[in-house]
């Protein structure tokens, strides 16, 4: 179980890392594409100058026009453009949005790819500058805000609720693009929309998985129970304000024979804050142990006796926490403080998780038994070595439906984890299929247009043959005329002489 869970955590973490890696590659590719657009524009400008130098537009060599057409074709594949031939035969180029890319002088697109890409790392804007706005020595704009933004800087195209609710203005985080077509638009779509949304779905899956596993694991206890519990939640600031209710039962168990030394209940709803709750635990434990809020901010419960262990039953205790993303979840007492977590965070994202170190090294510390609570009068007994109800609850947690919030095209609903994982795959495959169909359609359209252009500009052999026959006939008619004329002259000369 521990091995599989470890593997699962690595798979999910690896998948999330892969997504960011692909975004990084897309970002580098955007940098390269911008560079190529600039060199195409420069090339077209150079040809424009040569074409303009010819005295009349018609005198310029056709090779120059051919070369320029080639460059325009290459440019059009990267960004959507519209072109306009001026009176002197030179070509002006605008983006489809109307931004000038080339008239008398070429404009320069400036983009600085991000050095590293993470979940919420920012990207620089892509802006168009006139050449006099660029420092020739560095190639960078003299005043970065003077350019016209084609693509704004930010984190991603559609903001998640946690990004919307944070302190940074949304306009600084949302990337809006005026590029509608070409390779550049495709790469931006991947970097800012498709990949982040896929990442959102993976994070949601990881978050739901962690919640379900830890909820089940905290409600059980290993046999023998541990003498010391250290909470994993270090930020308890939302405890006091959270909606709380119910009671949890704590029992001190004699680890030599499994009997209960002491059992008591704590009222999660009545405690004013986490310190008051720790005081309740201290009062309940009497002299057997102590509960403190550690300097790190987490709750720690330590028993004094060497042969004693602490077991917890969540009972009906509930602490409702709504996180920044809008997930509203009911935590039990031990689950909220993370006293007996199965998986713990080892990074900032939900997908960064690992099996708790002491369980990974000693799998017997996984919760298998449950604390049975009866009363009043309160009687709590811990199931023995043969009790596997907590282990079964862990297995059941994976197949129980639980709520997920709307993420990256998948709606908010109540699903099992396996179904959600299936939904992610199905959603991605539908997107992939749609993209492939669009690509097919566009290819067919491009081919058809190519064919039509070729039909107009190309040579038709039948036509040429007909023209040749026509020429041959004209030739033979002319020869005939010459022959007749010659004969006439001969006749005339004969008559005269």
């Amino acid at each position, binding site marked *: 179980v521990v091995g599989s869970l470890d593997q699962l955590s690595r798979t999910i973490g690896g998948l999330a890392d892969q997504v960011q890696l692909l975004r990084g590659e897309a970002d580098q590719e955007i940098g390269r594409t911008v560079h190529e657009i600039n060199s195409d524009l420069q090339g077209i400008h150079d040809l424009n100058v040569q074409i303009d130098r010819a005295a009349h537009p018609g005198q310029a060599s056709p090779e120059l026009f051919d070369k320029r057409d080639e460059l325009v074709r290459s440019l059009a594949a990267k960004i959507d453009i519209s072109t306009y031939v001026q009176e002197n035969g030179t070509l002006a180029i605008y983006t489809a949005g109307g931004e000038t890319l080339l008239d008398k002088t070429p404009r320069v697109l400036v983009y600085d790819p991000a050095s590293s890409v993470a979940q919420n790392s920012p990207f620089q804007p892509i802006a168009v500058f006139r050449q006099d706005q660029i420092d020739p020595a560095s190639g960078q704009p003299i005043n970065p805000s003077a350019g016209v933004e084609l693509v704004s800087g930010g984190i991603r195209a559609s903001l998640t609720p946690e990004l919307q609710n944070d302190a940074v203005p949304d306009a600084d985080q949302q990337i809006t693009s005026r590029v509608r077509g070409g390779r550049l638009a495709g790469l931006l779509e991947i970097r800012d929309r498709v990949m982040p949304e896929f990442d959102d779905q993976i994070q949601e899956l990881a978050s739901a998985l962690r919640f379900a596993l830890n909820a089940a694991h905290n409600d059980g206890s290993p046999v023998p129970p541990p003498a010391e519990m250290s909470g994993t939640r270090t930020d308890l600031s939302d405890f006091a304000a959270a909606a709380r209710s119910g009671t949890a039962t704590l029992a001190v168990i004699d680890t030599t024979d499994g009997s209960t030394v002491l059992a008591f209940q704590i009222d999660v709803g009545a405690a004013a804050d986490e310190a008051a709750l720790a005081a309740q635990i201290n009062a309940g434990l009497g002299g057997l142990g102590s509960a403190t809020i550690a300097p790190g901010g987490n709750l720690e419960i330590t028993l004094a006796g060497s042969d004693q262990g602490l077991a917890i039953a969540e009972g009906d205790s509930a602490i409702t926490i709504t996180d920044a993303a809008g997930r509203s979840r009911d935590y039990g007492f031990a689950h909220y403080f993370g006293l007996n977590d199965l998986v713990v965070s080892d990074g900032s994202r939900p997908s960064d998780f690992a099996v708790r170190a002491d369980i990974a090294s000693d799998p017997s510390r996984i919760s298998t038994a449950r604390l049975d609570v009866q009363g009043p009068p309160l009687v709590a007994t811990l199931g023995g070595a043969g009790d596997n109800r907590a282990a079964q609850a862990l297995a059941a947690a994976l197949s129980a439906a639980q709520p997920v919030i709307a993420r990256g095209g998948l709606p908010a609903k109540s699903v099992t984890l396996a179904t959600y994982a299936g939904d992610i795959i199905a959603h991605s495959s539908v997107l992939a299929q749609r993209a492939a169909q669009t690509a097919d359609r566009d290819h067919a359209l491009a081919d058809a247009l190519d064919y039509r252009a070729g039909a107009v500009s*190309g040579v038709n052999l039948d036509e040429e043959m007909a023209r040749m026959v026509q020429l041959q006939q004209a030739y033979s008619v002319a020869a005939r005329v010459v022959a007749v004329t010659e004969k006439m002259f001969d006749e005339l000369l004969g008559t005269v002489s």
Partner: protein
Amino acid sequence: MLTRIGDFAQHNRTTQLLLDAQTRTREAQIQISTGKVASRFRDIASETNRLVSAKNALQRIRQYQSNNELVDHRLTAIQSTTLK
């Protein structure tokens, strides 16, 4: 209206169509040799959810079976020790 046809364009177009036909043949060959209609989820997008759910159910049933076998082995072991 008679459409003018450029020979080079026509030639290219025919070659393109031939290549397309070849690609489709290759896909059909792969389908025949593997016995599966698609090798990627993308090709069966609308059915993906059902396939993944079915795989999931199959996996759970296999797990259930192996659990049952394990319990069976344990019971057999207990039986053989208690009957002695």
